[in-house]
C-alpha cells in the first residue's frame, strides 16, 4: 500500500467532515481527512478565548481595514475583532455574485463548527413529505424513521441540551438537561403557552449543542457565551472538541491541512472514484490520494465546486452531473424579520452568567390543515435580556450622576427573529466561472439565487405574527423589523446535489451516494432535497453517520 492510499478519504473537516471521519475510523477504516485551510489545535490555538472585553484594542469592534478586507463578512454580525482569523480570506478566495449572496465561510480544520450558533433541532416527517405532497422539487428518498436512530446517535455523542417539550412538529431528542429560561422568558412562556394552547404554538428553551453535563474529555458549559472564539472547556460541539479526538483515538485518522481538493478522480472502467487530487495550498504542489470511498464534506457550495471541477470527458459538467441538477436547487433560510419590545416590571431581577442559548418557537404555520397564501413555514429564535447599563435618562446624560447611572441595569427587552423555509428552485444555482480565478489559479463559483414569491409572502406572516404574539404576551412598544431577504445570510446553505429516488432528477441516492459514482458520498448540506426551517447541522450529522454506516456495510459486501 503506497503512502497515498487509504480506505477512505474525507474532504473537509467541518461539522459533517468531522462526523464522517469519526464514524469511518471507528469502523476500522484507515482514513485521511483533507482540509484546505490551516490547522487549529483544540484549546491551544483559541488565542482570544480567555481575553476580557477590555483586552481587545477596539473592544471587539470593526476597523476600516477589516471592512476593506472582508467586504462580504461585513454585511452582517460575523465581522468582528475577536475571531477574525476564523473567517475565510476573501481576497484569496473570491466568488462571483450574480445576485447578492452572503457567503460566510471558514477555511481551517474544524470549518464552521468552531463558529456556529449550535442550535440543533430534529426534522419531522412533515418536512420529509411536503415536497412530494405539494409537487415541489423531488421527493426525499428517506423519511423520519430512517434518520431517527441516527439523530439519537448524533445527539448522544455531540451533546445537545434541550427540554423534552413534546411539541408534535419538533421531535424530542436524546437531550442533556435543558438550559434555564430567565424570569422574563419564563413569564412570557407561561402567557404564550396558555394563550396559544389550542393553536399548538409553543415557546420553548433553545436546543443547543452546548453540554450541560460533562462528556469524556469535555467539561460542561460555563456560561461564558464566547463560544465562537473556541471553547477552552470543549463545552460546545465542534470538530476539535468532539469528533476529531474520537477519530484520532482510533489510530486510523490522518489529517492533512493546507490540502485543497481540486477534483475527484473518476475511473471510467470501474465507474467509481479512485481518489482525489490535492493542491497543497502552501507549496502549490499537486498530490494524488487514493481510497475505496470518498466522503465529500466541503460544505454545500464547496462540495458542488469539487464535483463540478471534477469534470471528465464522460461527465463534462462535473461528477454527478448526469441529471442536470448538480449545482441547482440552492437553498438557505431567509431571515432578518421579526419583532421586539419592552417588558415592564422585573426591575429587581437580573440573571447571572451568559447563557449561550435563547428561546425557540417551532413552526406552527401550514400544519394540521391550515392553508396560508404560501406553503411551508418558519420558526423563531430569540430571548429576553436587560439592557446592560445606561438607562441614559436625559436628565443624567453627562456628569457624575450619569456615570453612576451607567452601572444600573437598563430595561428588560425581548426580541425574536424568524427563520423561514426557502423552496428548492431549479434556477437558484451555483456554477463554475472559469474566467475568475482564486489565489491558486482555480476557477471560482458564481452564485445566482434569490428569494421568490413564496418566501416574500411568508415574511409578511413572520413579521405580523411576531408582533401579534409579543403583544398577546403583554410586551410593550413592539417594533417590527423586516429587511430585504438576502440568501446566504441564514448561513444554512443547502441543496446543489440533492438526494432523490431517480437518477434522472437527483444527484444522490437515498444513501447519499452519487448516482454516477457509487463510492462517492456527499453528506453535507449539498444533499438536502428541501430546507425545512430548522437549523440544519444536526441533520447533516445524522445523515453523515447513516451514510458512513452504509458505506462500510457496502464495502464489506464488496458492492463498492
Amino acid at each position, binding site marked *: 500500500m503506497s503512502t497515498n492510499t487509504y480506505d477512505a478519504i474525507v474532504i473537509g473537516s467541518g461539522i459533517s467532515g468531522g462526523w464522517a471521519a469519526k464514524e469511518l475510523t471507528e469502523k476500522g477504516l484507515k482514513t485521511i481527512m483533507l482540509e484546505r485551510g490551516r490547522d487549529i489545535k483544540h484549546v491551544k490555538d483559541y488565542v482570544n478565548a480567555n481575553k476580557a*472585553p477590555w483586552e481587545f484594542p*477596539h473592544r471587539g469592534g470593526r*476597523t476600516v481595514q477589516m471592512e476593506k478586507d472582508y467586504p462580504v463578512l461585513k454585511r452582517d454580525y460575523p465581522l468582528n475583532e475577536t475571531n477574525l482569523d476564523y473567517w475565510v480570506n476573501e481576497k484569496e478566495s473570491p466568488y462571483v455574485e450574480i445576485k447578492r449572496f452572503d457567503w460566510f465561510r471558514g477555511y481551517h480544520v474544524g470549518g464552521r463548527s468552531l463558529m456556529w450558533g449550535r442550535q440543533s433541532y430534529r426534522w419531522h416527517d412533515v418536512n420529509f413529505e411536503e415536497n412530494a405532497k405539494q409537487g415541489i422539487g423531488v421527493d426525499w428518498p428517506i423519511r423520519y424513521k430512517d434518520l431517527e436512530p441516527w439523530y439519537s446517535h448524533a445527539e448522544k455523542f455531540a451533546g445537545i441540551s434541550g427540554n423534552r417539550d413534546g411539541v408534535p412538529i419538533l421531535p424530542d431528542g436524546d437531550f442533556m438537561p435543558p438550559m434555564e429560561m430567565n424570569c422574563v422568558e419564563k413569564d412570557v412562556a407561561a402567557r404564550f403557552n396558555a394563550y396559544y394552547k389550542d393553536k399548538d404554538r409553543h415557546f420553548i428553551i433553545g436546543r443547543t449543542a452546548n453540554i450541560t453535563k460533562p462528556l469524556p474529555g469535555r467539561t460542561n458549559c460555563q456560561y*461564558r457565551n464566547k463560544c465562537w472564539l473556541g471553547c477552552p472547556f470543549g463545552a460546545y460541539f465542534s470538530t476539535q472538541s468532539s469528533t476529531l479526538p474520537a477519530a484520532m483515538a482510533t489510530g486510523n485518522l490522518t489529517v492533512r491541512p493546507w490540502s485543497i481538493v481540486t477534483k475527484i478522480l473518476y475511473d471510467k472502467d470501474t465507474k467509481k472514484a479512485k481518489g482525489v487530487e490535492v493542491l497543497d495550498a502552501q507549496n502549490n504542489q499537486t498530490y494524488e490520494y487514493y481510497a475505496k470511498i470518498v466522503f465529500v464534506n466541503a460544505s454545500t457550495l464547496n462540495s458542488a465546486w469539487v464535483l463540478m471541477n471534477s469534470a471528465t470527458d464522460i461527465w463534462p459538467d462535473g461528477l454527478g452531473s448526469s441529471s442536470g441538477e448538480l449545482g441547482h436547487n440552492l437553498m438557505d433560510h431567509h431571515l432578518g424579520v421579526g419583532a421586539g419590545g419592552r417588558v415592564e416590571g422585573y426591575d*429587581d431581577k*437580573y440573571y447571572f*452568567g*451568559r447563557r449561550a442559548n435563547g428561546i425557540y418557537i417551532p413552526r406552527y404555520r401550514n400544519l394540521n390543515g391550515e392553508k396560508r397564501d404560501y406553503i411551508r413555514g418558519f420558526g423563531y429564535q430569540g430571548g429576553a435580556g436587560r439592557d446592560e447599563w445606561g438607562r441614559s435618562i*436625559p436628565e443624567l446624560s453627562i456628569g457624575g450622576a*450619569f456615570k453612576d447611572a451607567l452601572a444600573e441595569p437598563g430595561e428588560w427587552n425581548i426580541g425574536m427573529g424568524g427563520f423561514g423555509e426557502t423552496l428548492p428552485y431549479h434556477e437558484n444555482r451555483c456554477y463554475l466561472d472559469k474566467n475568475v480565478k482564486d489565489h491558486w489559479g482555480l476557477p471560482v463559483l458564481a452564485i445566482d439565487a434569490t428569494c421568490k414569491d413564496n418566501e416574500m409572502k411568508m415574511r409578511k406572516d413572520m413579521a405580523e405574527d411576531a408582533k401579534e404574539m409579543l403583544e398577546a404576551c403583554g410586551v410593550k412598544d413592539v417594533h417590527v423589523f423586516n429587511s430585504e431577504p438576502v440568501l446566504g445570510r441564514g448561513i444554512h446553505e443547502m441543496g446543489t446535489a440533492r438526494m432523490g429516488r431517480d437518477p434522472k432528477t437527483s444527484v444522490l441516492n437515498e444513501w447519499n451516494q452519487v448516482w454516477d459514482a457509487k463510492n462517492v458520498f456527499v453528506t453535507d448540506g449539498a444533499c438536502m432535497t428541501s430546507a425545512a426551517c430548522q437549523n440544519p447541522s444536526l441533520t447533516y450529522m445524522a445523515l453523515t453517520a447513516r451514510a458512513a454506516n452504509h458505506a462500510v456495510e457496502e464495502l464489506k459486501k464488496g458492492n463498492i
Partner: protein
Amino acid sequence: MDRRTALKNLALVIGSTALLPRCTSHSSVAHFNSFDVTYDQQSLVLDMAETIIPKTATPGATDLGLDKFIWLMLDDCTKTDDQKAFFKGMGEFSDLVKKTYNKDFADCTKQEKMALLSTFEKKPGDKKDAKPANNYSKELNGFFGTVKGLTVFGYTESQYFMTKEIVYELVPGRYNAMYPVKNNMKA
C-alpha cells in the same frame, strides 16, 4: 482588592497598553495613521470626556485614559469622510465655546462646560429618538455625539467599570436565571 490597589493596577494596565504617541511639550503633535492631532485638540477631547465621565469618588475619563481610546477608534474605525467631519465639527465646537464664553473650553468652569455640553443633549422627558433642541450643524452635533459615544463605550468596556462597577466574570460557571439586582452582578 481595595479601591486604591485597584487603581494602581489599573494605571499599570493603561500604561502598558498606551498606544498613543506621548507628547512632551505643549506644541507637540500626535501622529496617527490617518491624521495629526495638535496638543490643543487632544486636551479638548480629554476635557470633554472628563466632563461627560468626571472623576468623582471613582475614576473618571482622565484616570482611565479614555481619550486614548477615542483617538484610536477615530483613527482605526472611522472612515476618512467621517474623520473629516469630526475635525470640522471640532473646529465649530471651539468657535461655539469662544462665542458663548469668550474663552477656550480649557478655561471654562466645570459649570460652564456642563452647561455647554448639555445643549447637545435632549430635554428631560423627551422621547428616546428625539433630536436635541439646538440649531448646530450636522458636523457639530456629530462631533459631540462621537466624543460622547466613544467616551461612554470606552468607560463601560473598561476594566475598571467591568470589575468594580459591575462584576464581570470571565468564567461565570453557572447560569442563575433569577438574580436579585442589588447584588449588582452582571457576570
